[in-house]
């Protein structure tokens, strides 16, 4: 019997069970491997066995879907070596003994001989089988409940699966329909597009003809008006001619002015030269250099000389040191005189730290010159008084002595005569200087004779005593 392939309508519980039991071969059954979200009772080996026992009643229902569903979980753990499903149970059967009731003859009669049962059976005998039966019968209501519960679970599972299947199918069908609709839409758009384009182009061709004519007219008239351009260019050239003529006149006028200026300058220069060299003018007797006798007529310079007035020698203008263009100060006529009004501050001095005023300002305030008002600045004396004082001073300077000249003797009447210091002695007037001039004491003379002159005397000394008057007394 080939097991039918597992259909999607199978109860998941079984799958799970078998999947769990598969890897759990060797006694891992006791661990509840409930699937997530759904608590499922793990059936013990007995229950499983019980289920098998009860298999005929739910079998017809199950058989619609998966008659072999009972087999499939058995297949999963692995192929039984002998080809019978119950074989898979054999390793599991190593645990607690499984009492198996006699398999139903009909229904899911795919149970093959159960060798382990046979083996077990071999040991127990008929008594053991009766006890097993009693045991099974005792378990029956529980089994029924259990069966009912499982079916219900399976039913619920089925419902859920059914709903899920419906949903998936509906979704998928929706997708297909939508895709189809999209495709249709694209096709429709394509067709409409081309049709509309064709329509408009037909229409457009009619319109373009009008627009063409209109635009050609408009452009030729207003934008690229050939005749207007032609007229404009002619006007431009005419205008250019006028401008050129005017500019030519202007240039000629300028040129004339410049020539005239040059000419005048030359004339002036010539006249100046003539005035300077007026002495070269020829006279009646001597012909000047410009009036050679061999010439037919005098040189123009000669004529100029005749007309010109001689240049007087005037003070030569002092050549300003600023005539050369080095300085290029046309308004400065005198050389600069530098006026050091105030002392310069020292160079490079760092500004002192602190709340000090600016050095330059301070110095300026310190050395600020007096700014007297007009009243103060003007002197007290009037100019007339000043002039008079000035005259007096001059006269006083020129006097030899300070005595005023008094014309009449009556002014000197009461004057007492003050003798000079040489003649006023302590006890009256001294006679020396008046009566006698040199001190002579005859009582001290040794002889009455005078010296004899042996050597020629000095001429001057000879005259001593002889030149004087009698008052000298030596004669």
């Amino acid at each position, binding site marked *: 019997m080939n097991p039918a392939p597992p259909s999607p309508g199978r109860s998941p519980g079984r799958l799970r069970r078998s999947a769990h039991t598969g890897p759990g071969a060797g006694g891992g059954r006791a661990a509840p491997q409930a699937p997530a979200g759904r608590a499922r009772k793990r059936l013990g080996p007995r229950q499983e066995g019980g289920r098998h026992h009860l298999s005929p009643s739910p079998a017809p229902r199950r058989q619609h879907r998966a008659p072999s569903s009972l087999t499939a979980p058995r297949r999963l753990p692995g192929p039984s070596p002998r080809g019978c499903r119950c074989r898979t149970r054999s390793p599991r059967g190593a645990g607690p003994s499984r009492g198996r009731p006699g398999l139903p003859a009909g229904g899911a009669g795919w149970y093959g001989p159960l060798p382990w049962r046979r083996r077990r059976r071999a040991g127990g005998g008929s008594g053991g089988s009766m006890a097993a039966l009693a045991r099974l019968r005792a378990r029956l209501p529980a089994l029924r409940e259990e069966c009912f519960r499982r079916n219900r679970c399976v039913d619920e599972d089925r419902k859920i699966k059914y709903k899920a299947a419906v949903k998936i199918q509906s979704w998928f069908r929706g997708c297909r329909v939508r895709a189809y609709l999209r495709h249709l839409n694209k096709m429709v758009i394509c067709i409409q597009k081309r049709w509309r384009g064709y329509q408009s182009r037909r229409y457009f061709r009619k319109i373009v003809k009008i627009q063409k004519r209109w635009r050609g007219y408009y452009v030729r008239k207003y934008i690229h008006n050939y005749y207007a*351009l032609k007229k*404009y*260019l002619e006007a*431009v*050239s005419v*205008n*250019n*001619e*006028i*401008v*050129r003529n005017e*500019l*030519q006149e*202007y*240039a000629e006028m*300028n*040129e004339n002015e*410049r020539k005239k200026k040059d000419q005048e300058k030359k004339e002036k220069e010539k006249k100046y030269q003539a005035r300077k060299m007026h002495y070269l003018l020829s006279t009646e007797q001597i012909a000047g250099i410009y009036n050679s006798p061999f010439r037919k007529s005098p040189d123009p310079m000669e004529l100029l000389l005749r007309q010109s007035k001689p240049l007087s020698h005037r003070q030569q203008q002092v050549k300003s040191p600023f005539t050369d263009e080095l300085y290029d*100060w*046309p*308004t*400065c006529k005198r050389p*600069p*005189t*530098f*006026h050091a*009004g*105030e002392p*310069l*501050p020292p*160079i*490079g001095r760092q500004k002192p730290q602190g709340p000090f005023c600016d050095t*330059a300002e301070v110095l*300026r305030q310190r050395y600020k010159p007096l700014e007297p008002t007009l009243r103060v600045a003007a002197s007290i004396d009037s100019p007339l008084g000043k002039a008079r004082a000035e005259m007096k001073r001059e006269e006083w300077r020129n006097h030899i002595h300070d005595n005023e000249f008094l014309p009449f003797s009556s002014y000197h009447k009461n004057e007492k005569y003050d003798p000079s210091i040489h003649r006023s002695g302590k006890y009256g007037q001294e006679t020396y200087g008046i009566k006698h001039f040199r001190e002579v004491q005859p009582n001290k003379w040794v002889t009455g004779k005078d010296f004899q002159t042996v050597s020629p005397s000095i001429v001057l000394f000879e005259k001593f005593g002889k030149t004087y008057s009698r008052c000298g007394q030596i004669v």
Partner: protein
Amino acid sequence: MIAIKLWKETVKCDLRGNTQFTWNPTTCARFYKKAAAFVLRAVGKHSPQLAQAVVQCGALESLVICLEDFDPGVKEAAAWALGYIARHNSELSQAVVDAGAVPLLVLCIQEPEIALKRIAASTLSDISKHSPELAQTVVDAGAIAHLAQMILNPDAKLKRQVLSALSQIAKHSVDLAELVVEAEIFPVVLTCLKDSDEYVKKNGATLIREIAKHTPELSQFIVNAGGVAAVIDCIGSCRGTVRLPGIMMLGYVAAHSENLSMAVIVSKGIPPLCTCLVEEQEDHIKAAAAWALGQIGRHTPEHARAVAVANVLPTLLSMYMDTHSSEDLQLKTKRALKNILQKCTYLPALEPLLQDAPPNIMKHIVGQFSKVLPHDSKARRLFVTTGGLKKVQEIKAEPGSLLQEYINTINNCFPEEIVRNFILQLQVPILKRERRLLFTLLWI
């Protein structure tokens, strides 16, 4: 450097201290101030770092105070120093402007002394040349009206500075250029282009160029005022670098639109440009002339024809091929050639170029032939008789390239025999009689 520091200290305290002497006429403070300002100018003119040092020691306030002085010499020296400081870069200019110099400079411009006006105008020019904001500051102080009035002044150096100042203001943006134009400088400025002083002409051309380059409307305005003719005459009468702004002005005007370009052509602009291209030695002037010609000729076949008729294409080509030309010149001539050739349908001018053009130019030339020849039988005849077809056969082109396509198009215009004849001629010399036979075939 120590001496400079010493002087700086002197100058700093004395410029500050000397302000109190201004009321007292007996003290000759003004010479001291002038000397101090001269020192600052001498220090500040050499490099931006030195100028920065001058600014950092606080000289700007003192100089601005000097600008308010009564003596014009002091004002002139102060303005000169400020100008040299502001010349270097925009930060220093900004510092000068922040010190409040600009309104005082505008007052200085109105003074009667010519030297002071010159220096003030030059300082304003130096300030406004760096950035649009600085130029706007100068304009807000009302400088344009006074500068515009001074264009009529006969002094040449003053005119130089005034025109330079106006051009530095106008160059930054359209609004500033429009403000300058609204000051009614046209057509007075055109008289400056006829001045005897070269630099007045140059600066006048610069001013017109800076105005023309912004928008087509401004260029249109200049053309309507006859500016193009004046500039063309100016180019014709000058030599050397003085011509350069005029050439660039023509290029800018022609670049804006084809009507303006046609106006330039009608004003006889092309011959002076050709003479410039040929005569000048300097590469940058030649490059500018080539660029201007390219701008004139690139718009329509009419324009390209006008340029080609002047026989300028071989010159451009030779300049492009010349190994001594600078890279800039080569680039500009190449672009000009390409621009003109793409529109040129005047075949007699194109034929001389077939001989020695490099492949990238040859492509355009042959392309033009391939556009014209299929439609014009006379041109075809001329093409064969002048030997153009022969030259085209001599060109080696990679199969599948654009050049080969053009050559094929040209070859398809002519009967097979002729073409084969030329190809054969390249390979084997044919006897005269047979050649004559083949030619008679052509005329049938």
